[in-house]
C-alpha cells in the first residue's frame, strides 16, 4: 500500500472521529441544564408557555431527536456551532477570533518543549551518571509533578511581581501607539511567561523520554558498528542514535497534543491570555454551555489535526513504518 492510501485512510479515520465528537457534543448539549428556549424567553422577559412553544418551534426543538441531530450535524459542517445567548453572538465567531492567540501560545510552547526537552534528554543521556544527568533527571521528575497553573503563578510572583522583568497579564500593552516592530516585541514579551509555563511540563516529559530512548538506542548493534568503523561521535549521535531515539518522542508528542491544548486553558486563565482557553473559562463562569461545547469541538479538531500531522511526520522520518497497518 502506498503513501497516498495511507494518508487517505488516516484522513478517513480522522473524519470518523470528528463525526463521533459532533454526535457526542449534540447529546451533551441536550443534557446541559436549561432548555435553550426557556433561557431565551427568560432573557426576553416573557417566559409564558405560548412564547416558549413558539421559540421551540423556531429552533426546531419540537422536532424528533434524530431530525435535530441531522440539523445539528448539518450546521457544524458549515461551521455553525450554535449561538451564545449570553453574548448574543455566534459561537463560531467567538472561538474564531480567539484561535490565533491560542495557536501562537501552544505552537510556541510546543517548539520550546521539544527543543529544550530533547536537548536536555540528549545532554543527560550522553553524560549518564554525572551531575548534569542527575540535575536533568531530578528537575524533570519535579516539573512532571507540578500543576501548570501553580508554575504560572509562581512565575508571575518571581518574574513580574518581584523582579518586574516581564508582564504577567494579557497579550499586549493596551492603549499605546506602537509601530509594527514594537508591537511584535511587546507581544513576544507577553508571550514569554505563558509559553514557558505551558512548556515546562512537556519539557519534563520529552527530556525523560529522550534520555531513556537514547540509552536504549546507544546499546544497539548498528551504533556499535558505526563506532567500530570510526565515525565521529557527533555524527553517530546525530545520524544514528538521535535519528532513531527521536521516534518515540514524536509518537508521544502526537498523543500529548490534547494535553497541550488542555494545559492552555489553565495557562491562559492564569495569564489572562486572550485565547480559546480563556474563553472556555469565561464560558464556565457564565455557564454558557453552547460556548463551552464550541470550545470543546474546536480543541478536538486541533488535536485531531495535530495527530494527523505527527503521524505523517513519523511516516516520513521512519522509512520502516508499515504504511499498510
Amino acid at each position, binding site marked *: 500500500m502506498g503513501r497516498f492510501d495511507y494518508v487517505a485512510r488516516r484522513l478517513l479515520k480522522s473524519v470518523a*472521529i470528528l463525526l*463521533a*465528537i459532533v454526535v457526542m457534543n449534540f447529546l*451533551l448539549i441536550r*443534557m*446541559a*441544564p436549561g432548555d435553550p428556549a426557556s433561557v431565551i424567553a427568560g432573557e426576553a422577559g416573557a417566559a409564558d408557555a405560548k412564547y416558549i412553544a413558539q421559540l421551540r418551534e423556531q429552533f426546531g426543538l419540537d422536532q424528533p431527536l434524530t431530525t435535530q441531530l441531522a440539523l445539528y450535524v448539518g450546521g457544524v459542517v458549515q461551521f455553525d456551532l450554535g449561538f451564545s445567548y449570553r453574548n448574543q453572538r455566534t459561537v463560531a465567531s467567538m472561538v474564531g477570533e480567539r484561535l490565533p492567540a491560542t495557536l501562537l501560545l501552544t505552537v510556541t510552547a510546543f517548539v520550546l518543549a521539544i527543543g529544550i526537552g530533547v536537548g536536555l534528554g540528549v545532554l543527560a543521556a550522553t553524560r549518564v551518571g554525572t551531575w548534569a544527568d542527575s540535575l536533568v533527571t531530578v528537575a*524533570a*521528575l*519535579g516539573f*512532571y*509533578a*507540578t*500543576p*501548570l*497553573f*501553580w508554575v504560572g*503563578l*509562581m512565575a*508571575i*510572583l518571581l518574574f513580574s*511581581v518581584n523582579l518586574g522583568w516581564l508582564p504577567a497579564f494579557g497579550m499586549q500593552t493596551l492603549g499605546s501607539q506602537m509601530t509594527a516592530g514594537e508591537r511584535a516585541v511587546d507581544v513576544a514579551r507577553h508571550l514569554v511567561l505563558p509559553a514557558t509555563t505551558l512548556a515546562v511540563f512537556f519539557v519534563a516529559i520529552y527530556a*525523560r*523520554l529522550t*534520555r*531513556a*530512548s537514547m*540509552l*536504549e538506542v546507544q*546499546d544497539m548493534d548498528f551504533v556499535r558498528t558505526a563506532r567500530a568503523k570510526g565515525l565521529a561521535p557527533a555524527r553517530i549521535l546525530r545520524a544514528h542514535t538521535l535519528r532513531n531515539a527521536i521516534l518515540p518522542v514524536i509518537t508521544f508528542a502526537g*498523543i500529548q*497534543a*490534547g*494535553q497541550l*491544548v*488542555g*494545559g492552555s*486553558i*489553565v495557562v491562559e*486563565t*492564569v495569564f489572562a491570555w486572550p485565547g480559546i482557553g480563556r474563553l*472556555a*473559562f469565561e464560558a*464556565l*463562569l457564565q*455557564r454558557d*454551555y453552547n460556548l*463551552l*461545547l464550541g*470550545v*470543546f469541538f474546536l*480543541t*478536538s479538531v*486541533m*488535536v*485531531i489535526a495535530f*495527530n494527523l500531522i505527527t503521524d505523517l511526520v513519523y511516516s516520513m522520518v521512519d522509512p520502516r513504518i508499515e504504511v499498510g497497518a
Partner: protein
Amino acid sequence: MRDFWQRYRRNKGAVVGLGLLIFVVLVAIAAPIIFPASPWEMAGAPFQRPFGEYPLGTDMLGRNVLSGIVHGARVSLMVGIISTIVAVALGLTFGALAGYFGGIVDDALMRFTEFFQTIPSFVFAIVLVAIFRPTIYSIVAAIAVVSWPPVARLVRGEFLSLRRREFVQAAVVIGESHLKIILTQILPNALSPVIVMASLMIASAILLESALSFLGLGDPNMMSWGYMIGASRSVIRNAWWMSTFPGIAILVTVLALNLVGEGLSDAMNPRLARKGRA
C-alpha cells in the same frame, strides 16, 4: 514479598517517595484530629503572614491555610484513588474483552478506546463536570472517563499474548467458562503492569482534580488544594503564601506517587529495571 521489597529498596527515589506518601496519607487520616474545626471556618485575622501565629498564615477570610492543606489532603487522595479504581475497572473490562475475544469485539472496543483517547481529556473533563454540576461524584466520574483508555490498551496487549499461552489453552480444553478463564487464568498474570500504571494514574488524577478545582469546578463543600490556589489567585501580589503552600502540597504528593510507581515498576520487572529507565 521480601524479594520484592529488596528490589524495591534498590531504587532510592522510590524509598523517598514511599516515605513522603506515607506521611501524606497519615496527615489525611489524622486531619480531623490535627484540626478538629472545619477548614472553612474563620480562625483569626485575615491576611496573616506565615511563620507567625499560624504556621502557613491565614487567607483573605481569616481561614487557617495549614488547616486547609491538611484537610485538602483527604480530598486529593480520595478523588485520586477512587477515580483511579473506577478508571482501572473500566479499562480492565474493555481491555480484557478486547484482548480475550479478539476479532470484531476487539476492533469495536479499540475504536471506542481510540475515540476517548483522541478527544482532549482535560477539556472533556471540564465539559462533563460543568454540565453535570460540580460534585464529588461528577468529578470522580469525569476523571475516570478520561483516564481509562491507556489501561484498556495495556490490558488488551497483555491478554492478547497470554491468550495463546499453554496454560490458558489448557483451561479452554477442559471446558472452563470464558469468565472463569479471564478471572482466574489470565487476569492474575496481567495485573502487575496495571498496578504500576494505577499508581501513576492516581498522581495524574490528583493533578487533574487540582486543575478542575482551580478553575472553580471543585465540589463546593470540599476544601481542596486546587480551590485554595484558585481562590487566592487575585491576591497573589499581596499574599504569596496563600497560593504557594497548597501548590507545594500538590507537588509533594504527586511526586511521591510517581516515585512509588517507578519503584513498583522496577521491582516487578527486575530485568527491565536498569536498562532504559527514564
